[in-house]
C-alpha cells in the first residue's frame, strides 16, 4: 500500500493532518503488521491525510524505562523528539498504548509536546464525525465480543469508553469479562515482561486472562494493543479447540466493515 512518510510530505512542501506513529510491534511483528495495515486502510478510506516517520521512527524507550534503564529511555526520547520537533509535528495517532502513554505523558517533560491520541479514540471520533461509513451488510452485527482493557490505555490513561463505543457502533453484543475497566486484568506483557520469561508461579498471566475471556463465551476477543493481542492469542492457543476464539484489534474489526 502507498503510505507517505513525513519526508515525502516535506519534499512536497505539505503537512499531513496527523502523524501515524506505528511503533516497533506494528512495524516488525507479523501479527501486529496486520493491525497497522488495517488502521492505515481505515485512514485512507476515511480521507485522513496522514504520514508515517518510516525509517526515521525509533522505539519510544518505554520497555527500557520500565525495566529500569533510564539512560536508554532518555537516549531514545532525545532522538525521537529531535525528529518530531524537526518536522514540527502537532498531532500523533498511534495503535500502541505503550507508545501512546510515553509520547503523551513522558515526552513533554523532555521537550516533546504533541497532541497524542490512541487509535481507538481516533476511530470513535471518525465514526462520530461520519467519516467512517460501514457497508450495508454489516457482518459484525449481533456477534458477541469481549473487550480486553489494555493497562496502558485503561488504568494508566483512563480510556475505557472509546474502544467500547467503537464496537457498539457496529451493533456488536459487548460482553464484559470478570475483571474489566479499572479492575481489568493485565495480559502479562507490560513493564518489559514481553521481553523476558515470566517469573515462576502457578499460572501464566496470559493464560489467566485468556480463561476470563473464554468464560464470556464470546465469538471474538477485542484488543487495542499489539502486545495484549499477542499475549491473549498465545493464552487462548493453549486451550481446548472448542473454546478457541479469535483475538482481533479494534482497527481490524472496523477495517472489515468500512465502506
Amino acid at each position, binding site marked *: 500500500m502507498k503510505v507517505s512518510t513525513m519526508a515525502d510530505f516535506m519534499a512536497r512542501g505539505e503537512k499531513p493532518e496527523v502523524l501515524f506513529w506505528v511503533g516497533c510491534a506494528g512495524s516488525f511483528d507479523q501479527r501486529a503488521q496486520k493491525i497497522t495495515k488495517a488502521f492505515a486502510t481505515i485512514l485512507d478510506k476515511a480521507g485522513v491525510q496522514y504520514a508515517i516517520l518510516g525509517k526515521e521512527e525509533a522505539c519510544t524507550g518505554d520497555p527500557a524505562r520500565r525495566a529500569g534503564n533510564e539512560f536508554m529511555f532518555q537516549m531514545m526520547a532525545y532522538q525521537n523528539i529531535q525528529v518530531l520537533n524537526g518536522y514540527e509535528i502537532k498531532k500523533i495517532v498511534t495503535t500502541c498504548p505503550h507508545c501512546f502513554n510515553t509520547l503523551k505523558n513522558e515526552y513533554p517533560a523532555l521537550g516533546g509536546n504533541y497532541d497524542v491520541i490512541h487509535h481507538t479514540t481516533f476511530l470513535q471520533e471518525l465514526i462520530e464525525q461520519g467519516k467512517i461509513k460501514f457497508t450495508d451488510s454489516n457482518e459484525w452485527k449481533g456477534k458477541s465480543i469481549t473487550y480486553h482493557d489494555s493497562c496502558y490505555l485503561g488504568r494508566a490513561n483512563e480510556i475505557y469508553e472509546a474502544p467500547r463505543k467503537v464496537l457498539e457502533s457496529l451493533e456488536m453484543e459487548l460482553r464484559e469479562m470478570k475483571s474489566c475497566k479499572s479492575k481489568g*486484568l493485565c495480559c502479562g506483557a507490560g513493564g518489559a515482561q514481553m521481553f523476558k520469561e515470566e517469573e515462576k508461579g502457578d499460572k501464566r498471566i496470559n493464560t489467566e486472562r485468556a480463561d476470563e475471556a473464554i468464560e464470556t463465551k464470546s465469538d471474538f476477543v477485542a484488543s487495542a494493543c499489539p502486545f495484549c493481542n499477542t499475549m491473549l492469542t498465545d493464552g487462548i492457543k493453549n486451550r481446548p479447540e472448542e473454546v478457541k476464539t479469535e483475538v482481533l484489534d479494534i482497527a481490524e474489526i472496523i477495517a472489515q466493515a468500512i465502506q
Partner: protein
Amino acid sequence: MAYVASILFTAITMIAFFVFFKKLGKIGRNIHLGKPFQINDQKGKRLQNVLLLALGQRKMFRNPLVAILHLFVYVGFIIINIELLEIIIDGIAGTHRIFKPYLGTFYDFLINSFEILAFLVLVACVVFLARRNIVRIKRFISKDLEGWPKSDANAILIIEIVLMGLFLTMNAADAEANYYISSYLKPLFSNLPSSTTIAIEHTAWWLHILGIYAFMNYLPYSKHLHIILAFPNAYYAPLIPKGQMHNMPSIQNEVLYAMQPELAPTNAAAPEKFGARDVMDLSWKNLMDAYSCTECGRCSTACPANSTGKLLSPRKIMMDTRDRLEAVGKNIDANKQFIDDGKSLLHDYISVEELRACTTCNACVEECPVSISPLDIILELRRSLVMEESNAPSEWNGMFSNIENNFAPWKFAPDDRDAWTAQ
C-alpha cells in the same frame, strides 16, 4: 480522694499525649529521611481528594458491604471521640458529666447517638474478626501477614470491641443515665447495691479512658496509623496519569550533554546515585505511603503477578519499606546518625525476583483506598538494579542492545521498519 484521682488522671493524660506526640515526631523525622519531592500544585483538586478519598472513603465503596462496616467503625471512632472531651474534663476537674446541665436534652441526644455508633462499631469489629479468623478471606491469610501483622490486626479489633463495651458498661452502671443501648444492659446491675454499681461505673470509666490512651499510643506502631495518615496521603496523592513515570533530570541532562557537549557545564557535579537502593533513596511520599499502609491486601489481590503465584506482593513491598524505615530510624536513635548496618531495602528486604515479576499494570495503585503507589517504589528499585548493579536478566540486556543498535526491542534491520508498506 477525688483530689488524688484528679491529679493522677491529669498526670496520665499528659504522659499519654507526650509519648504519643514524641513518637509521631519520630515518624515525621523518618518520613523526611526520604528525598525531597515537591508537591504544591492544584490545591483545590488535592483538597477534593481529601474529601472524597480520605473522608468519603470512595475507593472503599468498590466493595459496598465492607465499605459500610468500615464506615461504622470510622464514623464511630471519630464521633465517639467527641465524648472524650467531656471524659477528659471530668477526669481533670473531678466532675461527673460536666456538659449535661448545660446541654439538657441535646446531651441525651448526643449520648444516644454515641451509643448507637458504639454498638455499630462493636458489630462491625466482630464481623471483621470473623472475616479474618473464621471465614478466612484470602487476602487476610496471605503469608505477607504471618506473625506480628496478623496479631496487630486482631489486637486492634479486640481493643475496639473492649473499648466500646466499657463505654456502654459505664453508661449502664450509671444510675442516673438511661440511654438507648446501655439500657439493655441495666438488668445486669439491677440487683446490685448502689455502691457496687458506682464502683463498676468508675472502673469502666477508668478502664475506658486508659484503654483509649493505650490505643492512641499503640497507633504509631500499628497498621492502624492509617486513620491519621490517610488524610495527608490523599492530599499528596499523585494527580498525573498513572502511566507516567517520574522523570530523572540527572540522566536527561547527561544524555543531553553527550549529544550536545557545548551545553555541558564545566563544573560538573559528581554523579549521584541512580534509582533507590534503600529507603533514604526513595521520596518522602513513598515513605509516607509505607506508614499509611493498612495491610488490607486489596493491592495484592488485584496484582496479576501475585494472583498467578509469583513472589511479588505489592502489600509486602509497602510493609518491607516501613520495616526497613523503622530499622533505619532505630539505628539513628541509637547512633545519633545513620551508621551503615550492611543492609538495604533492595536485596535484604525486597528480592530481585519480586521486582522482576511486576507488569507495571497499575492494578495495585488503582485499588489502594489510601492512595499508595507500590509501583513507584518497585520502579525506583528496578532503576537501581539496572543502572547501579547492571543486574538485568539476559533477555533484557538483549532488548537494551537491540534498542540501542536496531532502534527496536527486537533484532530487526531498522531499514525494514516501513517494509509493511510494501507487502
